[in-house]
């Protein structure tokens, strides 16, 4: 844009210079033309016999509104005396006209010129005191008067604009590619590397970007590996503890211990699934989404029969979507669990697809959370201030996992406080 404005300014400046130059040239040509005419008339008059002079003047073939006459006095009014610069120019022009020296005028008066549209010249005839007066039209210069000028100018402008645009595009394209690659890396750490081609600076930038992406990838892999290792190492002690608990004579103690161990196991499982790459784990298959949602609710009800009455689904009975089935189930399950933990109930509503995406909302009637927390709860291990969630055994990973999974599907999930109380988790999924 800046470049185009600059280009426009340059064109205007060029045009002005051209116009001024052309005006000068036109003026000069007019002056010379006028000088030639005046000198040749003077010559004709001088060469004629004295008594024929008036007749010669009358016979001049005058065009362009010029007038010529003989008089005793040089022309005076109404034109002002010509300014010195123009006088010099005119005198110079008269000197250039090739005539014998004796036929040159000795004395003359110049009037008009400059901005006036005509000039007047008075020349004293050699013998006697007669003056030859002439007025000549000097049309104002017309700088634009050229048939080719306009088209040539337009062609130049358009060519310059096109070339500028092309060059700018060429320079900017790699930057756009870089931006797209950074965006893709944010969504998928295994996005393909940038081609390291093009101008030197661009290739260097691409190489640096690829190196950075590689480091991030390694970092993510390390993290995944570490989490998986932790998960595996915890398996053995948890298994032992569960077996040991079976030997406790106190039934209540045993039940509580097993419940604790289940909780530990659930946390480890959620850490594992947070570290895991959704797409690498299972293929995309067609799944009946409403049944998936109902199954999630049924499983929740089976696990927590006290809440069975506070879970509901509404929406179409069948709708096929292509997703990572287990991952999607986990995402919905986490959202339902979250609603249950914070709000004490969960209403799942499916809005049929429109414009290529479907919306699934999970609502509860709880107190909601402060607006500032609505995004923060998607950060791993973040806990809302004064959270009562601790007692429900959340790992702090439920919502981050849900968002990871949905984003891996090209969708997303957002939380809002509903008007009139309660929370709403809105899931958007492309179909």
């Amino acid at each position, binding site marked *: 844009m800046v470049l185009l404005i600059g280009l426009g300014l340059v064109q205007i400046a060029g045009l002005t210079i051209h116009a001024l130059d052309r005006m000068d040239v036109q003026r000069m040509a007019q002056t010379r033309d006028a000088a030639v005419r005046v000198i040749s008339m003077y010559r004709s008059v001088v060469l004629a016999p004295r008594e024929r002079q008036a007749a010669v003047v009358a016979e001049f073939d005058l065009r362009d509104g010029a007038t010529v006459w003989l008089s005793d006095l040089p022309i005076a009014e109404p034109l002002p005396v010509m300014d010195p610069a123009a006088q010099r120019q005119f005198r110079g022009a008269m000197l250039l006209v090739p005539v014998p020296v004796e036929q040159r005028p000795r004395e003359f008066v110049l009037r008009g010129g400059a901005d006036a549209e005509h000039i007047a010249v008075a020349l004293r005839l050699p013998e006697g005191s007669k003056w030859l007066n002439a007025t000549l039209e000097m049309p104002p210069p017309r700088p634009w008067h050229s048939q080719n000028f306009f088209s040539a100018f337009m062609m130049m402008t358009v060519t310059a604009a096109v070339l500028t645009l092309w060059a700018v595009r060429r320079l900017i394209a790699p930057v756009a590619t870089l931006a797209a690659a950074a965006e893709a890396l944010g969504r998928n750490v295994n996005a393909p590397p940038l081609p390291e081609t093009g101008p030197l600076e661009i290739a260097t930038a691409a190489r640096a970007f690829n190196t950075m992406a590689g480091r991030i990838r390694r970092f993510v892999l390390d993290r995944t590996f570490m989490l998986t290792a932790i998960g595996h190492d915890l398996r053995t002690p948890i*298994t032992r503890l569960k077996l040991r608990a079976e030997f406790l004579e106190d039934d209540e103690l045993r039940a509580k211990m097993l419940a604790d161990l289940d909780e530990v196991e659930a946390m480890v499982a959620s850490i594992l699934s947070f570290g895991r790459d959704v797409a690498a784990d299972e293929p995309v298959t067609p799944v009946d989404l409403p049944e998936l949602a109902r199954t999630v609710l049924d499983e929740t009800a089976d696990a927590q029969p006290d809440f069975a009455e506070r879970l509901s689904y509404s929406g179409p009975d069948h709708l096929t979507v292509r997703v990572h089935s287990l991952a999607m189930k986990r995402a919905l399950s986490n959202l339902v669990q979250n609603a249950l933990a914070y709000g004490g109930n969960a209403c799942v509503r499916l809005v049929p697809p429109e414009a290529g995406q479907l919306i699934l909302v999970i609502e509860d009637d709880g107190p909601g959370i402060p607006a500032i927390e609505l995004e923060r709860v998607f950060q791993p291990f973040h806990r809302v201030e004064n959270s009562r969630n601790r007692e429900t055994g959340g790992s702090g990973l439920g919502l981050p996992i849900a968002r990871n999974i949905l984003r891996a599907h090209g969708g997303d999930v957002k939380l809002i406080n509903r008007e009139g109380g309660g929370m709403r988790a809105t899931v958007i999924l492309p179909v």
Partner: protein
Amino acid sequence: MSSETAPTSGVMPHILVVDDDRETRELLARFLERHRFRVTAVRDSREARRVWPLGHFHLIILDLMLPGESGLEFARWLRGFSDVPIVMLTAMGEQTDRIVGLELGADDYVPKPFNPRELLARMRAVLRRVGEPAEARAEASPRTLRFSGWTLDLARRRLLNPDAVEVPLTGGEYDLLVALVERANRVLTRDMLLDLLRGRQAGPFDRAIDVAVSRLRRKLDDNGRQSQLIKTVRGGGYVLAADVERA
């Protein structure tokens, strides 16, 4: 290495436990002995191969993650000449292990860390299946079961509708449906179904079965006035009325 043997008795099933953690092994042995099993416990597949000919085992509990030869390789070796039931212990959520394990002919899998009582329930269910008529066992470990246009993908634990779209099931619903389909056109008693759901449900089991069946009927589009696919047998239990194709 360590092997513990309960007092010999003709009716007590003999279990071979293969797990590399000594504590787990010993605890599991003690736990199972308490529940009237005879247990031999070994630490890896080398020892398992050694003790295999020495006892008549009714069931093997096999950890997939073993030092040296993996549990999968051992299972492959064993399947070469024996169809003794195998219950595999897999890592949490490692789908591939489970799928490969089931393809190799494991009868069931339990993710580790397991709930001892759930393991017990699975073992009993597997042993009961073994005790059934031979033809049911002979056709065991198919990869898919087809009935009335529906497909059960046993490796991935999925139900596919006639359009090959997955219809998600809860764990209990899946086990129930597999039991019904495997014994199609035969009545399943409440006792058998209870075993399947035990350890999964927190609520009262009796009601849970009815609830699971009604959900299954809904998911199978079988909830008209008169259910055609899963029929209720008065006083007895349920029967799946369909021809089943195994592949």
